[in-house]
């Protein structure tokens, strides 16, 4: 079985095709930025992108990926290591406390902004309701998404809102 991930194709050998993508990432591909939190799609710590759509990898069999392109937190930065707009906003606004949920939060935010580059507060809240932050950094996550949206709009030469 092959899988397209972060711009590369990986051979997974004869892996059990029903293995949740989460454990394939963590144990087989050593992409441990994607986290295990609940295993039942409740917390969003395992959020990744499959063809730009946020997916809970803990409940997503690897076989379901097919030819789609998987993006994990490790695949967001530029080739030269430069952080993307969402990552940068997360660092600049010091969003994290323990940080365990944050790769999932960043991926959920990334999915939101890829689909809707200029979300309203309510759209942000609804899109991010899939992800739990046990430390309670929601106020900062909201701000960081707005900051990233502004940054992306500036880069695109447009107006943020």
């Amino acid at each position, binding site marked *: 079985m092959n899988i397209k991930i972060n711009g590369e194709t990986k051979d997974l050998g004869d892996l*059990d095709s029903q*293995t*949740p993508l989460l*454990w394939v990432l*963590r*144990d*087989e591909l*050593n*992409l*441990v*930025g994607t*986290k*295990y*939190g*609940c*295993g*039942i799609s*409740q*917390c969003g*710590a395992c959020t990744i992108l499959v063809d730009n759509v946020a997916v809970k990898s803990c409940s997503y069999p690897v076989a379901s990926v097919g030819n789609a392109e998987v993006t*994990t*937190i*490790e695949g*967001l*930065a530029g080739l030269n290591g430069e*952080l993307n707009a*969402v*990552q940068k906003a*997360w*660092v*600049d*606004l*010091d*969003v*994290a*406390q*323990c*940080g*365990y*949920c*944050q*790769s999932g939060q*960043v991926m959920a935010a990334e999915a939101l902004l890829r689909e809707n580059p200029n979300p309203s507060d309510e759209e*942000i*809240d*609804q899109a*991010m*309701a899939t*992800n*739990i*932050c*046990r*430390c*309670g*950094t*929601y*106020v*900062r*996550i*909201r701000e960081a998404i707005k900051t990233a949206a502004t940054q992306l709009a500036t880069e695109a030469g447009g107006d943020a809102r």
Partner: protein
Amino acid sequence: MTSLNYDNIDDIVEAITSGREILNEVGAPLRITKLDRRQFLKMTGAVGGGLMLSFSAPKAFASKNASTFQPNGYVKIDESGIVLYAKNPEIGQGVKTSLPMIVAEELDANWEDVTVEQSSIDQAAYGMQFAGGSTAIPMNWMALRRAGATARSMLVEAAAKRWNVSVDSLATESSQVIHASSGRHAMYLELANEAAAVDVPNADTVTLKDAKDFRILGKRVTGVDNDGLVRGEPLFGIDQTVPGMKYAVFQKCDAIGGDVKSANLDEIKGMPGIHDAFVLEGNGSVRELLPGVAIVADSTWAAIKAKRALKIEWEETDASTDSWSHAMNEAERLRHESGPRVVDNGNVDTAFETSVKQASGFYRYAFASHAQLEPQNCTASFKDGKLELWAPTQTPGSAIMSAAKIVGIQPTNVTLHQKRCGGGFGRRLYNDFVCEAAAIAKRVGVPVKLQWTREDDMAYDWYRAGGFHQMHGSVDENGKISGWRDRFITFTNDGNRPVSGGGISPSVFPGGLLENVRVEQTALEWKNRCAAWRAPGSNVFAFVVGSFLHELAHTAGRDHLDVLLEVLGEPRQMGPRGMHTGRAAGVVKLAAEKAGWGRDLEPGRGMGVAFYYSHAGHIAEVADVSVSDDKKVKVHKVTVAADVGPIVNLSGAENQVQGSVIDGLSTMFNLAVSFENGRVQQNNFDKYSMLRMPSAPDIDVHFVKSDYAPTGLGEPAFPPLAPAVYNAIFEATGLRARTMPISEEGFSLA
């Protein structure tokens, strides 16, 4: 016959987490007590391996390399850069950033020039290393300042020798030594060689900065791991891999105290990807190793699948039969009977008899789970009589002691690598998961990563104890609170002492401030483990006393703010570990002013205020809420005023307060675990519903910049939230809720 053993580590954890035992390293204005010698020996002996060393002065390091300048455990400078070591576990409270900031300040280094690394576990160099009780800042403030200043003074001396000038003619700034009169300057990196040859001065004699000259402290600094976090780097315990590692899971009895009678081990061993499966006997200590079945596999998923296929017959003769519904029935009976008195000041009976008005209410709060987002895990390797551990633990010293005991070696043969913790909240004060990993690694002879599932995590937690309070109070003809009685019903594991976090202190607010006070305490037998949960004790008592104060204010027909300030009274220090009523009144007034207390609100909207003192922090919170007819609560804003002395990292401090408010709301609205037949009834997040972003209110944080020495912020902003919101809901609706979580009274977050 298994008997549950709650040994004396409870005492130590209690001492650490109560926030009362903050070592006096901080100087005059802050009144924190020294541990007495008996406690001191006990704590250092148990937590750190029996070495008796000073907490204050870091031991001088002998540099291994002549070109490396390493005057103590916190600073290392060589030509490649400045490394500062963070000594304590990072659990989200921000100490991996804030503690090195203190060193960098006195070192006079540019923060941008500094690299922070997690330190080793080394009591000789660092004293106690743990995360608990919001103690990292107060316990380390002076030691870290001296560590930085020591390094700075040696760099200055090295420059003085190089340039043959007096030390007094030199200054430091931005990671360099400057000789202003000649215009010469040298980077610290260039001086490392020569500084390494300078005698290490007595840390108690080095000159410290005046606070007005601080360049780093009080500023907003982003966390040192933030870059790695957003890149998905392997920072956490769960991310650890070692060569040849296998993946392990461990199934225990869902009713604590149960033992393995038989299991389908052969069937499990025949499953794909399974390396081994075996029964581990417990060691008799509930905090170390409970009996169960271990499965070792080639991948986490193979292990989890095999765990699901396990068929275990349990011997439950001595297992827990804890029942929350039974406890509620018992409490309903006991609330009508007087219990043993913890406090009996003045004459409560007379106060009640002579009062003009009285009020009473029966308060109840459920058990709660820590639900730290990273499930317990530990990687262990046992080879040639030595044990190596990679563990996300809040008490690494204690983990070493316990794990050494489990595998039968000396603690000196254990190496523990501190890993970033995906939340702690008190759960990782206990190292049962470390003991299990050590036992499994020894048995299979290859390195293993033990992974608890979320279901394990919720089934084998050390829960925040539930409790019940029958409150009764009175007001006199002036509307002043004249009598206060708290009939508290808690839980006990040993039939004697209340469970950790479930014992009421004689000084519990506002008892120490009132004339006629009685607190009674009765404990129900309980087998499940209970322990510290963010702001232990305070996290529930604040809800009860903060709400009942409001009930009495309402009974008196007075404004709650006025009554609260009247109770606090004249500015004074309430005993060596107590609050300062002046600081308390200061934050109450500030929060009220910033929130616009007293302004007219539309029907269905209300404001509530609460104050609580815990972990040496004085915090007041005002909640502004609207409640709909169907009891949906919209929390518009929470205004917080905090006096924890000077702020170390403004960004981190605000984050802790914001997070405490969210955690407080989450807990008061929805979080409960219940027990039947000894088993937890909520086994994953679908039944334990933490707050999500749409319910997060605006949070307005204000710090009083007092001259007191700085204290911690991981916990004290949590307790006042619940009573502030309960009181606001009453103001909005006239409905007095006395159950936590409040969802059990039909309220929900909008």
